[in-house]
């Protein structure tokens, strides 16, 4: 790995919970590109900051306070106990005190107090209240784009304060006054215009899928199909567009196709809903989130499917599981015997349990797996019908597919999992220092099991995690191909022949 222009955090022992000393200002200069007018306008946001933005920001804050109980309550009830201060991967990786969740939230809370509370109006100095100024706005822009909305802080907060909610509100306010983030807003523009985050047009998708069908046929001798826009299929599969594009994602897509094939369930992708991700959540904008979700409803209606299944993607699964019914329901036109939507891992694990597919672990010979719980699956959603199914179901599928599966340190998995470092709309090159440093708690736990238990690969169930790890693993002297899709493992193990 070429020398990076910044220090790579030294990895310690995850059992010792190393917490860095404060390095004020360490990440003060880290910020993503500001959205240009061309990225703002298609979403209905102003193109740039103009005269009077301060008042508009405060007005918008007031409107969010009256619409979101989370924001309203979280603004008031933080006791500054500091239980969250050592829980954020960006703080642990950078030492910048403004990356401690409560300090991040206070960037917002200080303005709230000034304009919305008697104490902040009468005695701003006493309660740390600040006027909305350009400096404050710039600080917001930088530090609310150093939060991946992973919700780890919310697990340990005695008041249940979720800093992700505050980051979302801050980003929505910034969009509404013309200081949006280029990466997210450009991507949302592509979803509206072309249908997916990567901007892959329909002909390119068809091409890719045909190529994959040929590859599978060459490799297995079995004609596994990857249908798209197929009327009357039983299942609509909605998956992140990275699954059509990059490894290891695409190997997961091949896995889904093989599972459907082996189970004999007809399925289809959709050009209209060729993206599971919903960046409307990252920018905290209900309207955008709803518009993006409605594509899935329309596609399901047009294709006449009976069920909707989502591919492997963390934040997509949070929006799908927790919000889709709210945003684009009710789903009374689908088969009521199945939850809407389902996760592909629910589908596959159910088949494994019913012996509806056969897996041969020798397909993954020599691999020792560990699993990275994606933050938004772990803390923002569920799989199956019991709390915590989002932890047991992926592990059951992996364990059925590989010779050996071990877990990382208990304080870094399940609902205590660390974000990969690239979630929440931060998966962009200009934030590489933040991404590498924010990945360090996960890398620390990974190195621990690599050294002590001979782990060779880490399975991930999220497009962002996969892309982020592929990029940052080499900074920590790991092979970029260490990260694999869960369904890539299924794909290697599944027995196709005798099911036909």
């Amino acid at each position, binding site marked *: 790995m070429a020398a990076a222009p910044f220090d790579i955090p030294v990895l310690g022992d995850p059992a010792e919970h190393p917490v860095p000393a404060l390095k004020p200002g360490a990440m003060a200069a880290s910020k993503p590109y500001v959205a240009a007018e061309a990225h703002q306008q298609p979403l209905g946001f102003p193109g740039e900051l103009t005269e009077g933005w301060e008042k508009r920001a405060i007005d918008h804050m007031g409107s969010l306070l009256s619409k979101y109980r989370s924001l309203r309550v979280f603004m008031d009830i933080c006791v500054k106990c500091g239980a969250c201060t050592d829980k954020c991967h960006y703080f642990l990786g950078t030492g910048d005190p403004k990356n401690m969740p409560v300090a991040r939230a*206070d960037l917002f809370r200080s303005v709230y107090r000034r304009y919305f509370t008697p104490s902040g109006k009468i005695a701003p100095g006493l309660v740390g209240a600040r006027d909305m100024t350009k400096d404050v706005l710039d600080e917001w822009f930088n530090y609310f784009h150093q939060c991946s909305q992973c*919700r780890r802080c919310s697990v340990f907060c005695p*008041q249940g304060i979720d800093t992700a*909610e505050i980051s979302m509100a801050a980003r929505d306010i910034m969009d509404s006054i013309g200081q949006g983030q280029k990466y997210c807003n450009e991507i949302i523009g592509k979803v509206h215009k072309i249908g997916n985050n990567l901007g892959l047009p329909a002909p390119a998708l068809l091409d890719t899928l045909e190529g994959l069908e040929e590859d599978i046929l060459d490799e297995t001798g079995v004609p596994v199909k990857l249908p798209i826009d197929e009327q009357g299929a039983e299942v609509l599969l909605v998956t992140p567009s990275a699954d059509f594009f990059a490894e290891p994602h695409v190997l997961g897509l091949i896995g889904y196709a093989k599972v459907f094939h082996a189970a004999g369930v007809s399925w289809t992708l959709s050009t209209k809903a060729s993206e599971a991700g919903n960046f409307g959540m990252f920018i905290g904008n209900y309207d955008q989130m709803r518009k993006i979700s409605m594509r899935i409803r329309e596609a399901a209606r047009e294709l006449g499917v009976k069920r909707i299944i989502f591919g492997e993607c963390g934040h997509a699964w949070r929006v799908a599981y927790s919000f889709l019914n709210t945003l684009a329901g009710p789903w009374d036109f689908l088969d009521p015997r199945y939850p809407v939507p389902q996760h592909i891992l629910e589908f596959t694990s159910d088949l494994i349990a019913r012996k509806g597919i056969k897996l041969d672990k020798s397909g993954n010979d020599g691999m020792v797996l560990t699993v990275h719980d994606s933050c938004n699956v772990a803390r923002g959603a569920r799989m199956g019908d019991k709390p915590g199914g989002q932890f047991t179901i992926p592990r059951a599928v992996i364990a059925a597919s590989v010779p050996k599966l071990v877990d990382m340190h208990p304080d870094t998995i399940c609902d205590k999992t660390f974000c990969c470092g690239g979630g929440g709309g931060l998966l962009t090159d200009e934030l590489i220092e933040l991404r590498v440093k924010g990945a360090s708690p996960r890398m620390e736990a990974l190195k621990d099991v690599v050294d002590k238990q001979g782990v060779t690969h880490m399975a991930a169930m999220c497009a962002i995690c996969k892309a982020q790890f592929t990029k940052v693993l080499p900074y920590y002297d790991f092979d970029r191909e260490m990260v694999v899709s869960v369904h890539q493992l299924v794909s290697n193990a599944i027995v196709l022949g005798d099911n036909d």
Partner: protein
Amino acid sequence: MTIFFAILFSVSTLVLVAGLAMKIAQYARTPAPLKIPTTPAPLTTGGVALRLGREALLFESLFRGNKLLWLFAMVFHLGLAVVLIRHARYFESSVGPLVALVQPLAQPAGLAMVAGLALLLLRRLVIERVRYVTGPSDILMLVLLLAIGVTGMAMKCLIHTDIVMVKAFFTGLTALELRPLPNDPLLGLHLLLVCLLMIVFPFSKLLHAPGLFFSPTRNQTDNPREVRHLAPWAARLEEK
């Protein structure tokens, strides 16, 4: 002194009750448009009640997050709870069973409260990360509670005041009747600080006490696929 405190207590009580009622009404009225419980979360309302109960009584999340802070927090809050319950004896003409139950714990509870507060304050000053997120109001709140605790303990253990008169004063107040307070500076200070606490309560972080029960990450059921959750303002978007 008697008239001054009679007025001050009436005003403080009004501010506390009205302020809290307004805040709680505001929290209750503000919709939660999306399902955001921190998962794994209970699937049923009963499960949510248990989760909230564990948070309020056992500080479950704090326990997972920071054991030492949890201990300090428990010592302070449990002490405070017992002290508060015991203070009911100054307002009720006959002492209720709960009050009688905690009566023998009065002294240890007072000590626990003061010791817990001192430890919390010390921690706030000593640990770099916590000091960074501490503002003047956070220190003042601990100092205020400490001062209330110390003046109270001093009257209980060292310089006794005439508690029969104190009780007469408060039961009198509740019956809208003016009865004299003992003319005792320590008592005066204690009561003054308590009034201050009652007045700042609805405007401060002490809102965490009622607020916890409105925290959507803790008070929502995990059933978004089964039941469609729709806020009124979000429903209006669908009419368009």
